[in-house]
């Protein structure tokens, strides 16, 4: 007879195995542990609380349905994050907030305002508390276009390589590089601006 799993003290691996056998209580524990992280990724991409919550729940439903496909090549939370990112990308495409490459190409090549910006070196960490710094970074992220923000999030926070970003966003590697470049330049400009305000 198998021993009963103590959910709160079980590892993710044990809970995943239990859930793969159909143990929904084990899956509930995984949701409780990682729900904030999955929601946070959805929110960072969608920037709308209710939509992010709905998409994160949808990701968990898909996670349950595909659980047998999870082989443990990555951590469970990384696997779940990939699911929620794909759902967000699909949703952005449906809403046409994520523009097709051909439409964006011109902007990418000319570079908009960022192309003309002087080089700046932001260094607000000296003066800001970590929580405040995070707040300001988030405000700056919110001002980026969906394409630039998505490329930046996937590369900087999820550590996804150019090639994989291109695949997920449905564009060329060159476009990913441009999006990332202008996203960084804009962030640099926005954060430098915040620093100047603070000095005044």
């Amino acid at each position, binding site marked *: 007879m198998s021993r009963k799993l103590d959910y709160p003290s079980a590892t993710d691996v044990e809970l995943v195995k239990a859930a793969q056998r159909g143990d929904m209580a084990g899956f509930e524990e995984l949701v409780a542990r990682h729900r904030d992280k999955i929601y946070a990724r959805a929110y960072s991409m969608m920037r709308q609380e209710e939509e992010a919550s709905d998409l*994160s729940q949808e990701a968990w439903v898909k996670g349950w349905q595909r659980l047998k496909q999870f082989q443990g090549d990555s951590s469970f939370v990384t696997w779940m994050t990939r699911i929620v990112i794909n759902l967000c990308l699909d949703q952005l495409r449906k809403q046409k907030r994520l523009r097709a490459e051909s439409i964006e190409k011109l902007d990418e090549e000319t570079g908009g305002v960022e192309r003309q910006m002087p*080089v700046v070196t932001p260094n607000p960490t000296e003066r800001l508390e970590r929580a405040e710094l995070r707040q300001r*970074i988030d405000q700056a992220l919110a001002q980026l276009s969906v394409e630039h923000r998505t490329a930046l999030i996937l590369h900087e926070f999820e550590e996804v390589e150019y090639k994989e970003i291109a695949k997920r966003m449905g564009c060329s590697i060159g476009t990913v590089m441009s999006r990332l470049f202008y996203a960084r330049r804009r962030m640099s400009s926005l954060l430098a601006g915040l620093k100047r305000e603070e000095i005044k």
Partner: protein
Amino acid sequence: MMDHKTEVMLQALLDGELSEAQTATARAVIDRDAEARALYEELRSIKVLLAGNEIEWKLSEAREFYWSGIQREIEREERSADSEPRPTRSLHALLRLLLPVGAVGIVALSLALGWNQLSGSKSNLPALAGSHDIETPLEDAPSFTFRSEPEAMTVVWVDSGPN
């Protein structure tokens, strides 16, 4: 002013996306060009600034409420998957329909064979042949045969018509 190709090459250097030869080229550009150096530094600073400084958003919904929404959806989808017609079920439904028809066909076939035997031995049974008016249902009657190899079953369907 630097061209965009050089700009993204410097960024790719920062992101570790260049080959060995490309890395050497990018480093040479940084060494000889102050503008390239400044841009590389800007990109590097923003990368460092972002690392580990993403806001950790938290759900405002209570654990039970959030989970109940997920659970409801899982159960709803499982119910809907169960209620979808499956090919094997369709086959069973077809067989259920065909079996009574087949049974009628077998009875009809038995009667026909019986009559042929009786007809063949008419001279031996004059009393029987003469005392009964037996119709032959197979004559001029449309019919078709269904043979199922996996089921090892033959069904003959006979349509005797309204008359």
